[in-house]
Structures are given as C-alpha cells and as structure tokens.
C-alpha cells in the first residue's frame, strides 16, 4: 500500500515508470556490486542525471521540506541540509513575502569534490554528489569551497555533511524526502538527461534558472520564479538570525 502510494507520488513528480525501472536495475547492480565487494563506488550505469526543479510560485513557506529532511537524514539540532530562506519585500502599498528553499545543488562542476583532499566528497555517474564519512578527515575545505553555503561540519560525526538527494531512496526508485513531503508540490525531481521528463520540460517551458549561474558550477537544482537579488540579499546578511557558535554577517 505504502509502496504503491510512493510510486504514484513519484510518477506525479516526473519520476516515470521508465525511470523507476532504470533505478531498480541500478539498485540491483549496486546491491550486486556491494555483495561481491568488488567496487565501493559502483557505476549506476543508467545514463541518468538527476536534478530538481523548485517552483517558487507554488512554495508557501511551510518548512515541511526542512523538517522532512532533518527527520530522514537525522540532521543535528542547529544544522540543516535543506531549508527555506524567507524574504520580505516592501514598497508603498505592497508587501510581498518570498520563499527560497535551498539545498545542495549537486553541481555539474562541484567545487567541493575538486577541493576534497581525500576524495571523501565525490560525484556518482548519475550526478549526485555524495559524502563518504569514513574517508572524511574533517578539514572543512569543502565547506569553504561551496558558493551556496549548503555544507556544514557535523558536530557529532565530525565530518562534512550535506544533502545527498536522499540517495538511499533514489536508488530504490523513490524521490527525495523533501520532494515527497512538499505540500505545494513545488518540488519536482527527475532525470535531466531525459528530454521528456517533467524536470526537463519545466526547465525549458518555465525558464527555470539555477542559483548563481555565473559561479561556474552548473547547478542541477533549478528555480521557477526566482529573483536572484533576493537570494544575494540572503547571502549578504543573516542579521535577523539568532547566532549559533560563531555565526556572522556575510559579505
């Protein structure tokens, strides 16, 4: 029952039957490789390139995605792998509130992967950037390298952490937890290599754009209705945020 509901939800979110079958095959291949112990970093071999589209015109800032992520990923208090930036805009007679959900962009050219001295942060051939906790020395260079500030140093594991698109779910044919939970159905997850997938069609038809396209990282999380100035304002200031540790105002 729950499996069919998840599959239905997955289909609705651009994660079609074909993708599901491919993912199932990939999961089987991963399991087989793991069982034989022949390769700790197996190829998914599916030709997929996972990505996400977030429709900001639908997001109403319920933060359910943040909570789902913390629950699914067991993120410690005070830290986040996915969260929602809230901004207010005012001019005479008009007040507007904008929400920008943020998470790891699983960049095509990930600076965190390039900067890691041990290869603990690496990119699977389906594009998902993952973290190998056993190899991480906790130098935090990847945290400094991320132009989106979506990595953090976990105080419990003492390693760098970030969103991994809920790879454990994706490999079983499901969507990431934040996508499954989104009340507004603002988040769509799917294969960017498939021109017929919902994510590909949304990017083309709705002119979805990534954050900081000039950073040269080629993010694979796209936004519909994004005002880049709002995001930059968030990166410039966290004045309104209660500090934890040595939180500071950003430039």
């Amino acid at each position, binding site marked *: 029952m729950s499996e069919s509901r998840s599959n239905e939800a997955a289909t609705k979110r651009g994660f079609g039957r074909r993708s599901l079958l491919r993912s199932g095959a990939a999961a089987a291949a991963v399991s087989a490789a793991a069982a034989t112990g022949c390769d700790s970093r197996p190829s998914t071999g599916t030709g997929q390139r996972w990505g996400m589209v977030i429709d900001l015109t639908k997001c109403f800032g319920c933060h359910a995605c943040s909570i789902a992520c913390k629950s699914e990923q067991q993120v410690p208090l*005070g*830290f*986040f792998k996915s*969260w*929602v*930036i*809230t*901004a*207010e*805009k*005012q*001019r005479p007679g008009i007040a*507007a*509130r904008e929400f920008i959900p943020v998470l790891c962009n699983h960049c095509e050219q990930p*600076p965190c992967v*390039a*900067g*890691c*001295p*041990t*290869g603990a942060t690496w990119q699977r051939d389906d594009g998902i950037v993952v973290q190998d906790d056993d*190899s*991480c*020395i*906790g*130098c*935090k*260079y990847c*945290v*400094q*390298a*991320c*132009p989106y*500030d979506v990595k953090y*140093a976990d105080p419990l*594991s*003492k*390693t760098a952490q970030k969103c991994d698109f809920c790879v454990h779910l994706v490999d079983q044919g499901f969507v990431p937890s934040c996508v499954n939970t989104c009340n507004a159905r603002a988040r769509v997850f799917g294969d960017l290599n498939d021109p017929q997938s919902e994510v590909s069609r949304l990017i083309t038809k709705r002119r979805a754009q990534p954050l900081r396209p000039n*950073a*040269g990282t080629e993010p694979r999380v796209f936004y519909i209705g994004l*005002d880049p*100035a*709002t995001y930059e*304002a*968030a990166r*410039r*200031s*966290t*004045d*309104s*945020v209660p*500090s*934890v*540790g*040595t*939180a*500071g*105002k*950003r*430039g």
Partner: protein
Amino acid sequence: MDASITYDVPHLTYWDWRIAADLFFGGAGVGAFLFGVASRWWYGRTYRRLTQTAAWIAPILVLIGLGLLMTELGHPERFWRTLTTIQPSSPLWWGGVFQTLFVIGAGAYALSWRSPERHASTRRALEIAVTPIALVVGAYHGLLLALLPARPLWNTGPTVVTAILGVVLTGIAVVLLAHVARARFTGRLADTALVAEFFGGLRHVRRVLGAALLLQALTCLLWWITLRFGPAPTRNALEVANESFGPLFWFGAIGLGLIIPLGLGALAATKKTLADRAELMTVVASSALILIGGFAMRLATILAGQLS
C-alpha cells in the same frame, strides 16, 4: 524593491585561529629554510651560523603548524588518507603531501648541520631537493585560499603574493630572533666589539628584510584596490571584513607588522651615529613586530574571508 531577509539558518565560520596559526608557523618554517639556504648560497661561510640556526628551526616550526592543524581536523587519525589518495585538483592535497615531504627533507637537512664541517655534499644535495618543495609549500599557503571562488575576499591574485611575502618576512624575522638569542646565550654579544662584529654580518639581511617589507606593503595596497574597486561581491566582502576585523588587519597586520618595522629600519638607516647595540635592538624589535603582524594578517584573512 529591496529584500529584507526574515529567516535563514546560521552560517558558521568553521576555521578558527588554529588554521591561521598553521599557516603562520608553517610559513615561518618554510621561509626560515629558504632564507637559510639563500644566505649560504649567496654569502657562503659569512652566514654559516645563521644558516645553521635557520636549518634547525625550520622543521620544528612546520611541525608546530601541522600539530595545530591536526587539533582542528575532525578526524586527525585519518590524515594519512591524504597521502594515500591522489587528488591533484585539491590544494589541500598538495599541501598535505608537500608539507610532509618538506618536514622529512628539512629534518634531514637540520641533522646534517650537527657537524658543520662534515656532510657538505649531502647538505648541498638536500638544499637542491628541498628548496623546490619549500617553494611549493610557500605558494600553497596562498593558493589554498585564492583557489576558492566561493570566497571573494580570498579569491584574488594578491592573496597569493601576500602569502608568499608573508612566508619570506616571517621566515627572516624568526631566524633573526633565534640567531640573536643564540648569539646572546653563547656569549657573542658580551661586549661592544662583539656586537659590532655580529651586527656587521647582518647588514645584507637588513636590506633584504627592508625590501620584503616594502613589497608586502605595496601588495597589501594592491589587494585593497582589487577588493575596493572590484565587482560587487568583492566590495561587499571588503565591507564586511572591515566591519568585523578591520582593527586587527589595519592596526595589527599593517601597523605593527609593516609600518612600524619600516619606520624603525628607516630610522636606523638615517641615524649614522646610532650605536651598534641600539641598531641591533631595532632589528630585534622589528623582527618581533613582523611576527606579531604576520600572525595578525593571517588571522584577519582567515576569519574575515569566511564571512565573504
């Protein structure tokens, strides 16, 4: 329409004073080694004692830096993975590998100085082998930060030049202080004639130090211009850096570390009648200030850069 951010999560600055201290001690160690080797190549036996002092302190300083770095790592017990992985795209990997090689090479070089009359050919071979490694480590101290496009304050050309000149300055300063301390404890500063003889041997060094200070002051000016008149992210980065760490940078790094030592050097150069002992004191004071300023520069850079 300006946006006012009403909710965002805290963004922490993860690198603390220990990273700055790693760069400071590591840089001073590498600079000391290069200064010692250069002194011997250019002036031969004139600076033999100074080269010996430099050779002894170089690996110790780098080890102190690496020790501080280990306390900052989440999993220092896994540091060996850096040496068993090949990650040429990571500046940190280059740093880990080359600092390890440097400690081994500089350690062997220091041991070869236990008996200065022997092992001359071994020393020469080690100088040739370790000097390029030291240069890579010196450059790495700047590239580590400059190769991070995500941090506009660091992602500039002058960041690398400032780091390299910082390596040279702190290296010379720490060797001079150690050299003077060694001379004092071995009784070579007991009377005026000995001081004059000792100080006479340092004249070339003072010129090099003065030139390095001037170059560093110029590079800092270029760095400021790059940030102040660069694109919006760098201007914002400078504004935030000034707000939080301006006093540390301007008074500590520039004032104490550059301006006052330059002033003391100019004073010593113009006052021909200054006694040798007083002139020696200006060298000691300048060296101490350069070290204080060098640490302040790295601390301000590391802490402020993370806010950008």
